[in-house]
Structures are given as C-alpha cells and as structure tokens.
C-alpha cells in the first residue's frame, strides 16, 4: 500500500494537484523562431516576402518574371517550400539567383524552424554578399500557411483568375492575414466568369485597407505596379 495516500497501487503517488495559468500562444515555439528569423533577415539587410496561394496560381512564374526584371539591381534569394521535389528551386536557379528547396515530406505548410534552416543555407550561397530581397514561396495551400509566421515582413496572397472570385469569402483567414493580394493570370479574364468586384467586396469585408493588385506574368499587364511595390519596400 502506498504510504502517501493509502491507495493500492505502488507506483501511483498523488502529488498536490496544481493549476497553472499559462496564457501563452499554442504556437509559442513558432512565434519565437519567427521573431528570430526576422532579426536574422534584417541583419542580412533584406526584406522577406511570404508568398501564399493554392497550388498552380502562379507563385513560381511570378518569381521568374520578377527576378528577370530585378536581378541586375537587386540581390534576390529564394526559399522554396514544397511537399516533394526540387523542381521549383531548379526553375529559380535557372534565372541565376540562389534558391533553397525545403521539402516538408507531407506537411501542408512551412513553419519558422524550417525557414530558419533555409536562411542559413541561403546565407551560405551568398558567400558574404548578403541579400536585398528574400522570397519565401510557401507550400501551395490556401488554408494552413495562414497560421504560421515565418519571420517575413510582407505577406502576399495570390489568387489566380481560374480559381474563381469566391475565394476570399471561402478562405477568410488567409486573405485577412495578407498585406497584399495579387490577382494573377488576368490575361485569362475574358475566358472565365471572374468578378473583380466580388474579390474587392469580400476582401474589403475581411480587411478594409487590404491592398489589391492585378497582373499577368504572361502579358506583363500590371507588372510595373508590382515591381514598384517591391522597390518601395526595399531597405535602400
């Protein structure tokens, strides 16, 4: 018999029950790592952008065109998040800038500890030269990446015309968390029943001051506004 409480179980010892008020984020570990990532990125002199969208809405193509337009004057580095394959990083490297591929092996989002590792590899690739602009292309998913701060300065959510203009209403958390919404593939507007007005209205409900831009990486339409948005945000 247990001497402490008289119960029949030898290995069972009661201790005084203790109630602890914690009041910390369930994501405390990620939040902390994200803060340290942000400091790390700032120490490199860079601004980081987290790109979030469904698979196939044109994140990598946007990056290819952006790199072509800016690579001569801006030092760009890219962290690519995917469940599998090195393909996106290869597409970015083909444009002549350093790219790190993070494969999550099944996870539906990038988190701050993964990006931390990516930043160190990117720093290694720069050989001391540093970066002005770091893009983090998240895993294609309009739900989960919204919850995870990666240490970015700007969060850009892409929505392509073929996906439909009902997406902000259907995926509120992601669009509410955006600093900028980019409507992509607008060269396809004549072929789809896509209402710019609906996107404006629904996104406006979620975040009245949300910035919205429309562009096409194929036709080049609207691309200048995007490039000057980036240029305004650089630490120069």
């Amino acid at each position, binding site marked *: 018999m247990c001497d402490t409480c008289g119960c029949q179980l030898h290995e069972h010892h009661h*201790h005084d029950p203790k*109630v602890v008020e914690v009041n910390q984020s369930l994501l405390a*570990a990620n939040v902390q790592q994200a803060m340290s990532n942000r400091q790390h990125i700032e120490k490199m002199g860079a601004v980081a952008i987290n790109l979030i969208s469904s698979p196939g809405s044109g994140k990598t193509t946007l990056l290819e065109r952006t790199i072509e337009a800016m690579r001569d004057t801006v030092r760009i580095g890219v962290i690519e998040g995917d469940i599998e394959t090195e393909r996106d990083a290869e597409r970015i490297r083909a444009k002549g800038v350093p790219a790190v591929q993070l494969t999550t092996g099944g996870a539906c989002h990038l988190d701050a500890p993964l990006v931390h590792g990516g930043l160190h590899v990117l720093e290694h690739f720069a050989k001391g030269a540093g970066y002005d602009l770091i893009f983090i292309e998240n895993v294609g998913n309009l739900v989960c990446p919204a919850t995870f701060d990666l240490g970015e300065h700007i969060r850009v959510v892409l929505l392509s015309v073929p996906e439909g203009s009902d997406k902000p209403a259907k995926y509120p958390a992601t669009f509410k968390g955006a600093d900028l919404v980019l409507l992509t593939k607008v060269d396809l507007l004549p072929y789809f029943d896509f209402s710019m007005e609906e996107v404006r209205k629904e996104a406006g*409900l979620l975040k009245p001051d949300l910035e919205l831009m429309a562009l096409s990486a194929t036709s080049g339409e609207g691309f200048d506004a995007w490039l000057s948005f980036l240029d305004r945000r650089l630490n120069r």
Partner: protein
Amino acid sequence: MHELSLAQSLLEQLLELAGKHQAARVTRVVVTLGPFSGIVQDSFAFGFNILKAERPATRDAVLDMETPDPEYICLECNKVALIPFPRQSERLDLARHGLAARKCPWCGSNRLSPQGGTELILNQVEME
C-alpha cells in the same frame, strides 16, 4: 489540415511545463481556439488524443477547448455584432438547413467585417 502540428506543439509545451513544475502528469488542459483561427475543434482533439498517448505524462490529459463567439463590425452602422459560434452538435443541423446568412442584429446589413478571433492560446494546465 495542420491541426496535428498544433497538437504536437501543445504536447511539447505540456511536457516542458510538467518538467518545470515537477509534476508527474498533466490531468487537464484548457485552450482557446479563436473562431477565425481556422482550427477545427474535432480534428485538433483527434490529433491531441492520438499524440498524448505517446508519453505517460500526458496520457490521461483531458482537453477542454473554448471558442469565443465571433465578433464582427458592421460596416453599415459601425456597431459590434456578436454572432454565436455554431457548436459542434449544431453543425449537422446547419448543413441540413443551410448556413443562415450572417446579418447585423442592429441594422440587418450583411456587410460584416470579422474582428480578431485568430488566437490560439494555452490558457490553463492542471497537473499533479
């Protein structure tokens, strides 16, 4: 979809807290999942209950989840509208009868802008 990662992160925090307070086991956990956090209570509990069994210290932990009613600002009349969050048990009824259009209880407008509600908080832990 990422409820499992979140449950894993909670369990790591619980083990750390148990160690810090020299407790042998965690008996009860209270968390707040914001109504706009995107976390589904059922999936979160499902993940938690699978993962908690891996460690003796968390095996018997009971999970209490609280979700506050979502708060909106009506962009028409600028008043705050609290609209009850459908409980898990009411979800099927909603599916059967259709999700009633959210309307401002003061002026009837549907131009409701969600406020806050993305919080994911570990409030309280009972251990012994």
